[in-house]
């Protein structure tokens, strides 16, 4: 891994942790949102991958950190009572109202053989 890439990774990690700290210790979330949008720009310009564990904690619309219990709420949806594999998790951002749904199954169809 090149030194420049390593620096960018460290920068994104620092911005993410700083955003968490600002969300805890300031009344408004705009400072935290600014740090998160900067971290996203750095990852896009350097074409760096972020783990889904980081991406799922950021609201796509308003860049707010989704801290469960504070800035976001998590619910379970059951579209079918007969099929528990269709259950999905619903994440709602309390700042802007954006919802994200995560189904249990991958949704990938098996390729036909032959």
């Amino acid at each position: 891994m090149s030194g420049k890439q390593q620096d960018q990774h460290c920068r994104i990690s620092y911005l993410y942790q700083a955003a968490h700290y600002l969300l805890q210790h300031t009344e408004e979330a705009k400072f935290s949102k600014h740090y998160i949008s900067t971290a996203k720009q750095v990852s896009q310009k350097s074409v760096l991958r972020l783990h889904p564990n980081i991406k799922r904690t950021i609201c796509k619309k308003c860049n707010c950190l989704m801290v469960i219990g504070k800035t976001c709420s998590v619910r379970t949806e059951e579209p079918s009572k007969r099929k528990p594999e269709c259950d999905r998790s619903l994440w709602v951002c309390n700042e802007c109202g954006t919802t994200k749904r995560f189904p249990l199954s991958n949704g990938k169809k098996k390729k036909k053989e032959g």
Partner: protein
Amino acid sequence: MKKQQTKVKLVLENPLNVPWVNIDSSTKEKLTQVLIQSLPTAKEDYTRHGLTIGLNEVNILLESCCQHTDKDSLPRVVFVLHDPQSLLAIHYPQLIANANFYSKDSGECLLVCLGAEAQVGISRKLGLSRASAIAVRNDSPLLSQINPLLNGLPAPSASWLSEASDYQPTKLLRVTTTLGTKDKKGSKKGTN
């Protein structure tokens, strides 16, 4: 068929991740048996036994603990009857760590993952088709039987929530992916 070329990529992992608490399989089995013996069968007895059952109900209870600081609302222990890596239950360590931080004066809430195997027996005892999460209140009569087994278990905690938080080091994962194949015929389409 040509072999697909692979490439190793680095992925930045979440530095502020709260892990699940490791529990012995023997302790899990004992807890499962105690719950199956002592849980009530009638729905009317759930509140009398200090129980909150269901993923959504337990989520609402813990989120209200993060918002308000009512001393009585933080549960003593939350049992999760699901695969810990399932998307329905993966948020519980973070949620309980947040609830423990924002309700500091009311003690700590423990998190025990009994797995999907325990769900069948416990749901049958409760008279429900499925029960994926159970929260037990501080004043529940069930605690007299459960507390000896819960002794020594650490509660989920997030060290970065406190004022004197340390900077967490950068975590990188090495992921092997395949390189995209070039479509020689398709790349020349649309050119003048």
